[in-house]
Every structure is written in C-alpha cells, then in structure tokens.
C-alpha cells in the first residue's frame, strides 16, 4: 500500500481567497492511501518544500501530491524536491486547483472548493498507481544552425563560434547584413551603420567555426533537440563562387536594368549584380528571372561562333568576367543544390520586412515623392542611389519641405495593432541627419505621440526639437497630390486644436515592421508558433524570451517582435547563450513520459505510423514480422498512438490505463 502525502497550497490569496483549503485538506485525509496532509501559504517556497522533504526522509510518504498551480511552471520544482529527498521524481502528481479552480470560479467559493476536492481525489487516485521512471539521455550533435544573417543572426553565430561551437549561418540573400546593412546612420549615437556592421560581417565570414551559406534557405527540418537533420538548399547563382573575386565587371557589363531592391527600387541593377558594395561574401549572382539572354546565349548551350571573327559569341557577363566564373554553356539546375547537415540546436533570426506604401491608399502611394523610411535610409546613404545627396525621386531636386508620418500601419486595427517600437526613433534620426546636412530644409514630424523610452533616447529626441525640427501631434488622415509632384499633407495639430496642411516636397512614411509572409513556410518546417501579432512566439514572454515551444530552437531579433539594434544584439547574444547549454552539456535528457511499444503484443498492423504527428513511429522487422518502433528522440508523449492501437500494445508511461481509469473513478465518485 502506497503512502501518499497531499500538500495543499494557498498560493497566497490566489487559491485560499476562493477555495476553503482547510476543507480540502481534511477531505484529502480520508482518501485511500493518504498518510499525510498539510497546507502551506506557498508550497513552492523553501519551508513548503522542506515539509515534503521531511516527510519523505522520515518515511511517512512515498508518493507526493501537491494541490496548487500549473505543472507547466511548477512540476519541475517539486520533482527536484523529491529527487533531493531520495525519492524517484516521477512518483509525483500535481492537482491544479488554481488555474482550473480558484481563478475560473472566483465568484463561486463553494463550487470551487467542491471542484478542488475532486481534482485532489483524482490526483491521489493516480498517485497510488504511479511507477518510478528513469530519464533517458541522447548525445548532442556539436553544431548549431543559425537561420538569417541579419545583425541578430551574425551575433548569435559569432557568440557560439567564439565558445568553440561549429555554426552554419544560412542567409537567403547573396550577402549577410540584413536590414542594418541598408541603414545610413543609427540612433541613438548616429554612428555609421556600415562602419559598425561591416567588421562584424567580415569577422563572421572569417571565423574558422562559422560556415557561411548565403543564397541559401532551409528546405526541410527533421529531428529533435540535440539531433536535427536539416536540408539546406543553395539557390542557383549561375556564378562559380570559387572563381568569382567580386570585382563587379559582370554587373557593369550586363545590359539589363531592373529595380534594385537594396536601394528600395530607387535605382537599377543588372541581371548580373553584386548585392551591395560591402557585401560579405562579395560575390556576384545572375538573376535569371530578368536575364535577357543577350547575345542569344541560352543557358546550357554552346556559344555561336561568329562568322566574322571565328570567335565564340559570349554573353556580356561571360565576356566581362576576368576569372572565368560565368560560363553559360554549363547546364546548371535552376532549383540549386541540396545539402544535408546535422545540428544540435537551431537559432531562428529571420528578421522583418517593412510595409510597402501601396498598403496605404490614403497616403498618395502613386506619388513618387511619398517613400517609406527604409527608402529614405538609402536616399541619405553614401552608397545609396544618389550617393548620399538628398534628392527627391520625381525630379532629382533637393526638397525644401519634408513631412514624416508616424504609425503608418502600426497601432492601426486595419493593419497591425502593435507599436513597431523603432519608428519614432528612426524618424527623429533621419530628420536630424537631414537637418544637420541641410539646415534650410523644413521638417515636420506628424506623430500621435513620441515613444523614446530607451537609454539616451529622450535626450536624442529633445535635441531634435532644439535643432528646429517641428513636431506636430496628430495623425495624418490623408494626402493630396499637388502640381509639380508636391504632396499636400492633411494633418491635425492636437495642441493647436486646428487642422493643418503642409505642402511637402517629400513625405516619409514610417511604415510598420512586420513578419514577412515567407515566415509561415519556415514555421511549418520547424514547428514554430506565432503570437497574436504574427511574430514567432517565445516560450514565455518574461522568463523564456529566446526559447520556443520546440525544444532546441531559439529566437533572436525582429522575427520575435519589432526591436532596435541594441535590443536585437542583446537578444541574439541571449539566444546564443541559451543554445549553448545543450551543446556544452553534450547530452540532452529525454523525458520518460513517452510511448513504448510492447513488441510481443504488436500485430504490425501499422495503424499508428501515419497518426503520429511527430513521425516518431516506423515499422521494423522483428523476428521476421513487422513491428512498430518508436524513436524516443522524436516521441513527445502525446498518446495518439496509444489510443489508436487496436492491440493495446502501446504504453504511454505516466499515463497508463490503470492510472487514467483510477483518475476517472475518483472524479466520478461524488465528493
């Protein structure tokens, strides 16, 4: 006969304010197998745990039920208590009388108490039938995958590499750097973005522990913490990167002119191009979707021989390349090449996108002089389309009046309800940079309010006012297009209590940062979930900010929510530290509360294999007959197979039939 101790927690007033805890304790006293009942203000406190330890040490109890809060946060604490007292930690059961009792029935004290009793009875019923279980361990593949080579991914990769871990850094663009590479200067210090980012990019590329995989994407992910099998697709670049020196001759020679994404579409690049001047790696790619097969050079065909010269007629890029890196006679597969890698942990750092102006019909999206703030970064950058001279897109004249419009797509139920957090600051930054260089330009900042809560941020904002930048409190509701491509901003000044208009030469929209739609595909591959705003969801907003619901997968940077560079880098380093834990331990624990097949009972019918949501079950031949086998590293203990097996051959440890039936019996017995 088991000796069950029942410990009822007050959780301060959380439980005791509603549930009559003494009544519950007295009720537990008379349940079968219960030898000890106690209560405490906080069972998870030292004295609370000490109570349990004492009772175990003095031989009073050999099974423990704590009637308190949720096992999600507290089961690990009490299991450790049992372990320290020398009892198998799986001889523990939690009765959640708070989240499922006092909190949901706050207005019904009597009912909440009655329900608490049943929940306790059920836990006691199960506890009587618990068996000791043993943790299992598997080895960890000593390598990490970082997806996304923005500033977040770069820092996560570098941190892990410096700790001595092998890192694969996968970036879908030809170069790492992400959005930060597009910025001119950065608040709150106004240091040049390229000047602080380029050295880190180079460091990452040169680090012996980092393998840089650019133009690459994650095609598939399988496995479990410690042992992920990842298939990487290297997209076709049509340039032999082993030979390419990044001289840019092909880009210059290419006759195609297509919108240059890196410069916000405000200038052009060739079909052959280099991502941006400081690209790392500095390698050329050919964008086949816009290539015009100049010189009739179809891919995978031998060149024509010129009748005049007797020489082969080559495409402009081929001809220009001094190192022979482009050869269109090769038949290169358009879908690129696949490669499988194995890693123990994954950090997702896929960043964000900004909303395009076409999403905002009220803000004159057809005017060339209405641009997004990210385009403005390029327009004032020395490597941008105008070489750093501020010229408006319509006529390449210097603007005299600029309006900045805040909260475009943020804090707006039609788009995103969240605040994008960085817009106020980057608007102020851009306004200051422009004002410093061109004091005669008049600048109006239309804001609902200015959000400058970071270190040194408010001082940065105040300085903008001192510089003569005008702040107008009031959201802009519309725009009209004036002759000569001016834009009339229809605004409202809350402080004046009056409608205002600005005849602006340029309008800058601080458009929202959002999760790009491609994130959905990646999420499906990895099993990540989204928060209400559409960003990747962390495991706990306060205590597990870089962990995810998928063990061994961590988040860094803006893919988890909008943030500035200081916060991005902090989080990236945090994610690296968290990801390093399994890598350092070398082993990961496998929870024993998973399913196991009794090979004697299994008939090999195979019903379970397609049902498993984690692909953990395979049929293997065992003494000449097919038998289901469960991979312990894949099984999550969901119990689907257990319920489905017609031969009752699958046992879910910790949730056996006897255990569950005893719970049901206790619940259905009147309290």
């Amino acid at each position, binding site marked *: 006969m088991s000796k069950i101790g029942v410990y009822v927690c007050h959780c301060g007033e959380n439980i005791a304010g509603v549930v009559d805890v003494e009544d519950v304790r007295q009720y537990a006293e008379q349940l079968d197998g219960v030898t000890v009942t106690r209560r405490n203000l906080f069972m998870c406190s030292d004295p609370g745990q000490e109570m349990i330890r004492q009772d175990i040490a003095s031989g009073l109890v050999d099974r423990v039920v704590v009637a308190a809060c949720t096992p999600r946060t507290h089961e690990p604490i009490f299991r450790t208590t049992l372990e320290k007292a020398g009892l198998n930690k799986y001889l523990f059961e939690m009765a959640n009388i708070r989240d499922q009792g006092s909190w949901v029935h706050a207005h019904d004290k009597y009912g909440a108490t009655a329900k608490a009793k049943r929940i306790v009875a059920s836990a006691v019923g199960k506890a009587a039938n618990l068996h000791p279980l043993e943790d299992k361990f598997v080895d960890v593949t000593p390598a990490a995958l970082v997806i996304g080579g923005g500033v977040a991914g770069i820092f996560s990769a570098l941190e892990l590499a410096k700790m001595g871990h092998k890192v694969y850094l996968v970036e879908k663009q030809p170069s790492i750097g992400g959005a930060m590479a597009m910025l001119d200067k950065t608040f709150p210090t106004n240091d040049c973005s390229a000047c602080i980012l380029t050295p880190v990019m180079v460091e990452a590329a040169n680090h012996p522990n980092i393998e840089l995989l650019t133009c690459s994407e994650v095609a598939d992910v399988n496995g479990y913490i410690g042992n992920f099998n990842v298939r990487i697709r290297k997209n076709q670049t049509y340039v032999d990167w082993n030979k390419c020196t990044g001289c840019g001759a092909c880009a210059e020679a290419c006759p195609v002119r297509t919108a240059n994404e890196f410069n916000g579409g405000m200038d052009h690049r060739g079909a052959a191009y280099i991502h941006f001047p400081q690209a790392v790696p500095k390698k050329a790619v050919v964008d086949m979707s816009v290539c015009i097969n100049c010189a009739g050079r179809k891919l995978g065909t031998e060149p024509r021989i010129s009748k005049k010269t007797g020489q082969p007629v080559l495409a402009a890029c081929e001809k220009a390349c001094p190192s022979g890196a482009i050869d269109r006679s090769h038949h290169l597969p358009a879908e690129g090449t696949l490669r499988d890698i194995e890693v123990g942990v994954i950090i997702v750092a896929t960043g964000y996108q900004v909303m395009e102006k076409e999403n905002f019909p009220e803000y004159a999206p057809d005017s060339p002089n209405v641009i997004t703030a990210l385009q403005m970064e390029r327009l004032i950058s020395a490597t941008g389309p105008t070489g750093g001279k501020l010229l408006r897109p319509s006529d390449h004249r210097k603007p005299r009046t600029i309006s900045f419009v805040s909260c475009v797509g943020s804090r*707006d139920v039609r788009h995103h309800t969240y605040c994008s957090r960085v817009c106020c600051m980057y608007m102020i930054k851009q306004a200051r940079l422009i004002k410093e260089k061109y004091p005669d330009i008049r600048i109006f900042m239309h804001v*609902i309010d200015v959000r400058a809560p970071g270190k040194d941020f408010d001082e940065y904002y105040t300085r903008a006012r001192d510089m003569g930048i005008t702040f107008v409190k009031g*959201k802009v*509701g*519309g725009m009209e297009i004036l002759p000569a491509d001016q834009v009339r901003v229809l605004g409202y000044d809350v402080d004046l209590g009056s*409608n205002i208009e600005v005849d602006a030469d340029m309008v800058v929209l601080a458009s929202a940062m959002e999760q790009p739609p491609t994130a959905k595909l990646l999420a499906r591959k990895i099993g990540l979930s989204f928060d209400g705003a559409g960003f990747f969801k962390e495991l706990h907003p306060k205590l597990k900010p870089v962990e995810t619901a998928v063990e061994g997968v961590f988040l860094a940077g803006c893919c988890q929510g909008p943030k500035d560079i200081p916060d991005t880098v902090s989080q990236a380093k945090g994610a690296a530290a968290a990801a390093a834990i399994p890598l350092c331990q070398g082993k990961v624990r496998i929870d024993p509360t998973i399913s196991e097949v009794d090979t004697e009972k299994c008939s090999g019918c195979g019903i379970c294999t397609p049902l498993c949501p984690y692909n953990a079950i395979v049929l293997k031949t065992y003494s000449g007959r097919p038998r289901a086998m469960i991979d312990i590293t894949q099984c999550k203990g969901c119990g689907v197979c257990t319920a489905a097996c017609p031969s009752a051959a699958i046992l879910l440890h910790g949730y056996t039939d006897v255990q569950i039936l005893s719970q049901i019996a206790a619940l259905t017995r009147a309290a």
Partner: protein
Amino acid sequence: MQTVNLTQMDKEGIAEKVIAMGGEGLLNCVQCGACASVCPVARAGFSLYCKNLIKKLQSGYMEEILEDSSTWACQACNRCTEICPRDVKPSEVVFAFRRIQAEELAISTSAFTPLMSLYETGHAVYNKRSKELRKKVGLPETPPTSIGDPKAVAELQKILDDSPMAELGIFLNLMSRKQEK
C-alpha cells in the same frame, strides 16, 4: 474658472447612451486626430466635429454641448470612418449625438422644415416651381414618386406615426390635420 475639474464631471450614463444610439466605437478612440485632419466640418472651422466631440463625450460633457449645432453640419461623408485606425466609426458617434440632441429637441427650427415636408409629401426637399421646370424640359409635371401617389405617402406616414420621431411631437400638427380629413 476655465479649469475643468474632472473629478466633478458626471460621466454617469453618457457613454452608454451614445453607444445605445449607434456610436458603438466611442470608447475605442485614442484621440489620434486622423479623423479631424480630413473632416470637412473640422476643416471648415466648426466648433464640434468627430474628434473633439468624441473627447468631450468620453470626458462626460453633455449639457455643455447639447445646443451646439455644428454636429448638424456633418456631411456623413464617412471619410473619418474609412481611415480611423481604431475602427471607432466617428461619423456614427456624430450621428448618435445628433440623435441625443434630437431627443432633447436641441435642434434648430430650420431642421423641422424638411421633416414636415417628408411627412406630408414623402420628400424632404420639394420645390413648388418644379412643375414648371419639369414641363420646360419635356417631362410630366409630376414624377412617378410619392408626390403624386397618396398611397405611398400613407405608407410612409404609417411608418412615421409610430416612430420615436412622432413621440417627440414633431408631426403633431400634421397628424391631427390628417385625422380631421
């Protein structure tokens, strides 16, 4: 004193009333100002318009603004509703407030003429010269509307007679005249 003592503002029932009258989004407003920036009423310089009406109602103003006729300048253009980032539907708050003003008969006498005309002819706007104008352009003197259709007017009056509008006594004279007939 021009200072408003917020603790002494009696907000009792005001928001509930506005919401019940159709201004359902009243409490969602964050006073960003977007609606006012494009509101023709605000732009023309009227004293009350979407944004500041909403703020006043949220703050417990009612008697102080009940007689202000600016709300009757609202064009119902709905541009505010199209762009409000909080889905307040500001124009509906303006109309809810108008309905409250109407209930208190805090409306200008000129507002009654179209109502009377609506009740009598089925048309809020009617022009006695119209017969002449219609003839001039080659149309029958009477259009195929309620103006020449007593049955249609009677149907309309049945709807109006039992409406809250009738309870205000707006149509009292007309209703008794009808009964005399």
